[in-house]
């Protein structure tokens, strides 16, 4: 806990500020937000219940053969209308209250968000811990021109700051303000790292002072908005290819085979087949439909030092990832994709893992070799293109690749020539699998820890597997069944490579803070119990 506000902050409308007179201010969300977040549902359900009650009331008074609605006595309608109005009033009032307390601030060194009527919550993410910034536009919100900004930090979804909702232009402004702060933080860290660390501690305060402008400065145009940054390259997934890739799938073949069989079966044989098959087919098709909705209009914009990944048909999502936040990249090709030669690309970003994060970890859903290689080079500058290509296509014997020991062929007769790694300037290139091919690109600097493991069979064949531990995500860093000496060598050499690469990531100490918390630490969450308003 670096900062914990005093107990009085909840009541004060003008909260504490580090520098008096700084340009940072608290901003509110869009007034429609509470209704989009659930108010509309409450109104609809409430209205429905009230209308039900009206019919009960009518039925109770006049019996089932009551008068037509036009003949209803005035009082019945009045009661219903009043009840509905009261409900509307309550929902609006509650929405207004919760809107009033939800505020965010793009502060000096952190983004802060406060919300909650009964349970006050205060969440802050320091800019150096921000992993990516998302703009999501769910269908309903899009209809009224609103967007949601999600600022992701390394601690997982519990530490993300979710600003829902803002007008779309406002959302873009907030994103750009936050990203420019992240950049500033980064530049500052780099400047400090370039200088001598001992003196940097003293200098930090002045360097911080170089970025005193807040969101309002950005809005006024004082700070260069990052949206103005030139897009170096745009790579799109053609809709046709996406549709084909979804159709060209084992499930489709299964359906094509299964549907006639079921139809014939239900015509000539037992009738029960069709209703039994229906949910299965639907269950198989639904994920495809969802993937289409999610991955349609997939565009990757390459800016100088960040990626912007935009996708989605109904719910649009635009994810901005600073390149320095990419933990690892995986290029894979399922066996079914061998013939059209499509590749899928995933990234590991700290804090984005677990259920329902596939849409956020997919960097390119279906790409051709060139696109994928280009993107890999953008994501991990310094990674060797030829080596990645050898990782994708190589069948063994490529220069630079150290593969599984021949002695391990007994465990992996098909893949031992392919399973292996090559060293590139910035990343380790690990390739696995022959029928379904996987290439993991693991930046040296992002290796958290390593281990060499050897089971009894491995011992028999004098081999061992090396595992590079990464932050949670879709990319795996395991190199299976290397020759034992090779495994030891990889451990020692990769440790050295990672150690050297890590020195570039060193974050120096800040003014007045002996850093108890680590850069990987999630956002801080302060939750308080009910307080008087």
């Amino acid at each position, binding site marked *: 806990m670096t900062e914990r506000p005093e107990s009085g902050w909840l009541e004060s409308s003008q909260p504490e500020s580090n520098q008096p007179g700084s340009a940072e201010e608290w901003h509110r969300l869009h007034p429609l937000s509470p209704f989009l977040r659930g108010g509309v549902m409450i109104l609809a359900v409430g209205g429905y219940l009230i209308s039900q009650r009206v019919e009960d009331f009518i039925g109770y008074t006049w019996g089932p053969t009551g008068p037509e609605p036009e003949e209803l006595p005035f009082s019945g309608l009045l009661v219903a209308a009043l009840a509905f109005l009261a409900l509307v009033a309550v929902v609006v009032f509650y929405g207004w209250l919760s809107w009033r307390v939800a505020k965010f601030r793009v502060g000096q060194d952190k983004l802060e968000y406060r919300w909650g009527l009964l349970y006050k919550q205060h969440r802050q993410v320091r800019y150096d811990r921000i992993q990516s910034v998302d703009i999501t536009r769910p269908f309903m919100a899009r209809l009224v021109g609103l967007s949601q900004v999600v600022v992701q930090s390394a601690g997982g979804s519990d530490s993300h700051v979710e600003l829902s909702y803002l007008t779309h232009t406002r959302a873009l402004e907030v994103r750009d303000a936050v990203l420019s702060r992240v950049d500033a933080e980064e530049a500052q860290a780099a400047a400090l790292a370039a200088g001598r660390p001992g003196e940097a501690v003293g200098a930090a305060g002045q360097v911080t002072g170089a970025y005193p402008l807040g969101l309002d400065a950005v809005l006024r145009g004082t700070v260069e908005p990052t949206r103005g940054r030139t897009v170096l390259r745009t790579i799109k997934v053609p809709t046709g290819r996406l549709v084909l890739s979804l159709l060209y799938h084992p499930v489709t073949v299964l359906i094509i085979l299964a549907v006639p069989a079921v139809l014939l079966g239900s015509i000539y044989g037992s009738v029960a087949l069709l209703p039994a098959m229906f949910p299965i087919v639907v269950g198989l098709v639904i994920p495809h439909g969802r993937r289409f909705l999610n991955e349609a209009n997939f565009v990757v914009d390459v800016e100088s030092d960040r990626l912007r990944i935009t996708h989605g048909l109904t719910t649009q999502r635009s994810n901005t990832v600073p390149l320095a936040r990419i933990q690892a990249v995986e290029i894979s090709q399922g066996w079914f994709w061998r013939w059209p030669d499509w590749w899928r690309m995933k990234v590991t970003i700290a804090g984005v893992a677990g259920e329902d994060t596939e849409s956020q970890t997919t960097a390119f859903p279906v790409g051709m070799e060139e696109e994928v290689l280009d993107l890999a080079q953008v994501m991990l500058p310094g990674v060797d293109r*030829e080596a990645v290509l050898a990782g994708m296509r190589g069948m063994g014997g490529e220069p*630079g690749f150290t593969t599984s020991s021949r002695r391990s062929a007994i465990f992996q007769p098909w893949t031992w020539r392919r399973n292996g790694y090559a060293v590139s300037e910035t990343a380790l290139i690990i390739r696995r699998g022959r029928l379904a091919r996987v290439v993991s690109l693991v930046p040296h600097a992002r290796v958290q820890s390593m281990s060499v493991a050897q089971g009894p069979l491995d011992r028999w064949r004098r081999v061992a597997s090396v595992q590079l531990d990464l932050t949670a995500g879709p990319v795996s860093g395991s190199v299976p069944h290397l020759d034992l000496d090779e495994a030891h060598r990889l451990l020692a050499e990769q440790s*050295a490579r990672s150690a050297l690469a890590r020195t570039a990531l060193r974050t120096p100490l800040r003014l007045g803070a002996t850093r108890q918390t680590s*850069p990987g630490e999630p956002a801080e969450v302060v939750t308080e119990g009910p307080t008087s308003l």
Partner: protein
Amino acid sequence: MTTTPQPSFEPPADQAADALTDSAVTDDAVADSGVADDAVPGDALPGRVPSGEAPDPGSAPVVSPEPLSEPLSEPLPEPLSEPLPEAPEHPRVDPEMARVEMFGEGGLDWQPVSPRLITTRTITLLAWLVPMLIAAVGAALLVSEWLWIAAAALLLLIVWGLWLIRRQVSAMSYLELSEDLVIRKGRLFRQVSSIPYGRLQYVDLQSGPLERKYGMATLQIFTASPSTSATLPGLPVEIAEQMRGRLMRRGEAQRAGL
């Protein structure tokens, strides 16, 4: 955080001397070993430098099998640079890390865990299985003679467990290098983990009632990766506390961003 009397990050004097005289390894030694020279990116720092002048892995010589039989332990004249915080220009293989082996000592100062861990684990095992054994024997006497089989199986299990505990505990050891903590454990399924201090997120020290009675604690180290397995049971409490302090300080000094 506990403070310990050892404020420096230097390895103990004997180890440092070891590094100087015995087996200092330079870049040349690394370069000799085939693929490794791809890892030495010229004068370029790792990161965002175009790979123009770096050796091209695509055209690099194929890994030759010879160097593998001599894993980087040849003594070379040039002494190692100081341990961090100063960044070296090239990746330098830590000569001690290069000597880490699955089982052997490799001339390194592997620290065993406390043999008292055998005692506590035995107690835990017996606390579970002896009552079951008694119950099985009782049931065999009272109910059916066939249940002697179960009793015999339980007895076998106990004997095997006792043997296993000894083997496992004696297989655990750790090593504090200048930049990494190395933990070895397991005998049948052997694992050697190395955790760089700079990657440390936090260090946990736990001591249950039984452990406390025998003056031991379990040290658990977390990085940002959930797959990091770095649990070190059976450390004498004072050693564990010193170690935690040391790890925290080294982590602080060598900390890198995610």
